[in-house]
């Protein structure tokens, strides 16, 4: 049992937190570093969670999404070819195995249950017992459900739930290639990113409307952009891993680069609708179109960074975190469309320079004789 726990620690816990270190750093800075009085800010936020069923639902949805993220990570690892040895855990007694997965899930969701427990503590202290108890029960159910699904994943041989494919073929012009990838292969990822994006945009624009200024809103906006960095990376990986033959075709770099802004333009239509509907009435003084250009510009920039030679996901996450934090320093300029255009142009230059120098991450081939392309690892990361 001790050794089984050690294996899960090394194959699941450490890789999960390493891979998401950039995201955690960014969230920590955004939630605790950016607020003027973090203690008061979070006390008020917790009270809002406890008093407003709508806010509680939104927060619980966010926690649930995080739970999906950890669950997806673990189940993909359990089914991965190079983690086949973990199937040995099937030999353990069911109760022990379930206990192991419960421990694993509890560790993986530490960032959210710590906040949930503190929120519940505030609830019990301020005599809001029902929502506080609800939060505790929700967390326990989340851990038990995730552990059960991990257990079933280990015992079964399925690769997870997928939406059915269309029974007919629709024309797929070149510039829609990335969108089709999102539709076919990245559905769940896109769904998660969009839910996260809507949630962080609607908190300042709808649920907390009238209590924010532009700089507060931008904090949330930046989180929405950072969430989409996952999509930008996924697109680069798709082109390089699923369509390497593109490099042998006489297709110009400009044409390949344009795949990205075209995809983002369509992808961000829901966010554009939210911005055009809510922002004009907020008095932020920023035009929705200007904000949208900034969003696309930064995504283009971030996507181009993903073409850095031998860049792995941890380094990419770190880069996204750094870019997001640095963005806070230039945003007081408030000329969002100008910043967006500059970022897009800088992204194009970076892409143009890096594209033909790009190489994927290489890892030891396991025989000690050489290196192989880390395609399997990258597929898992997706």
């Amino acid at each position: 049992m001790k050794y089984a726990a050690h294996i899960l620690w090394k194959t699941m816990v450490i890789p999960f937190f390493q891979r998401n270190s950039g995201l955690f750093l960014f969230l920590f800075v955004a939630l605790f570093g950016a607020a003027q009085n973090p203690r008061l800010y979070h006390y008020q936020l917790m009270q809002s969670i406890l008093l407003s069923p709508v806010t509680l639902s939104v927060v619980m949805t966010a926690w649930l999404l995080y739970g999906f993220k950890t669950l997806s990570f673990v189940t993909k690892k359990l089914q991965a070819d190079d983690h086949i040895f973990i199937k040995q855990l099937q030999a353990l007694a069911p109760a022990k195995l379930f206990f192991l997965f419960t421990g694993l899930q509890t560790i993986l969701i530490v960032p959210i249950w710590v906040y949930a427990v503190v929120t519940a503590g505030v609830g019990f202290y301020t005599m809001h017992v029902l929502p506080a108890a609800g939060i505790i029960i929700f967390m326990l159910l989340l851990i038990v459900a995730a552990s059960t699904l991990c257990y079933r994943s280990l015992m079964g041989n399925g690769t997870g739930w997928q939406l059915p494919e269309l029974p007919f073929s629709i024309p797929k012009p070149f510039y829609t290639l990335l969108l089709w990838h999102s539709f076919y292969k990245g559905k769940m990822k896109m769904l998660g990113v969009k839910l996260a994006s809507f949630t962080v945009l609607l908190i300042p624009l709808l649920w907390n409307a009238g209590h924010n200024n532009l700089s507060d809103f931008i904090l949330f906006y930046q989180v929405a952009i950072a969430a989409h960095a996952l999509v930008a990376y996924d697109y680069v990986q798709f082109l390089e891993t699923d369509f390497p033959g593109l490099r042998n075709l006489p297709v110009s770099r400009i044409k390949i680069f344009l795949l990205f802004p075209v995809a983002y333009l369509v992808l961000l239509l829901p966010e554009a609708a939210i911005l055009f509907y809510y922002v004009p009435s907020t008095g932020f003084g920023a035009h929705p179109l200007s904000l949208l250009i900034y969003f696309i510009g930064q995504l283009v920039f971030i996507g181009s960074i993903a073409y850095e030679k031998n860049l792995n996901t941890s380094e990419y996450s770190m880069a996204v975190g750094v870019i997001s934090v640095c963005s806070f320093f230039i945003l007081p300029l408030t000329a969002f469309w100008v910043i967006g255009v500059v970022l897009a142009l800088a992204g194009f230059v970076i892409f143009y320079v890096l594209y033909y120098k790009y190489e994927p991450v290489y890892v030891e081939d396991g025989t000690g004789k050489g290196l192989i392309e880390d395609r399997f690892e990258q597929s898992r990361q997706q």
Partner: protein
Amino acid sequence: MIQFTAYKKQYSGNLVLDIPTMELQKGTYWLKGINGSGKSTLLKSLAGFISFEGSIGINGVDIQKQKMQHRRIVNLGEAAPIYPTFLTGMELINFYVETRQGDKAACLRFCDELRLAKDALHKQIGAYSSGMLKKLSLVLAFAGPAQWILLDEPLITLDVDAIAVVLQRVETEAARGTGMILTSHQDMDFPHHNMKLTTLVAADKTIHTLP
């Protein structure tokens, strides 16, 4: 002609291939070597899949500098081809024919010869068997007026009939004057036996030309 000058390829600091100078006149070459000897790396370098140190000139076109011209004259058929699984075979053929300015009818004829059925071409690639995928990759490798065609293990996963068709096609292309470099661990029994096949050996992190 292919000219290598101070060519080196390293993966994460590990030297895989080092070719100080080498010239390959237009012709048909059989590149041999054990697994991991750098055969695929050489073909990927020649096709523009991967970056490298030094320079390679193909028919006077510098791979690293004249990227578009280079990609118009060199086609690669990969050993283990990968394409977006949501595209159909026909969509890929259309795309390759458009970008390479190839002949779609000729591609479809080659599909017929390989017994890659038309209804299969309208299915998503995710539903293809490894043999079907290999056949499609060979059709794409022969799409367009290339001056050099590079085929990495073109015969693996193919059925006996398809192997004969591919070898026939290689012979025909070579007779037309297209330069060819093939890697194969299988014997290649060309139908007309009148093709001059030069052997290259990948070993000791370089390429040797056999007399």
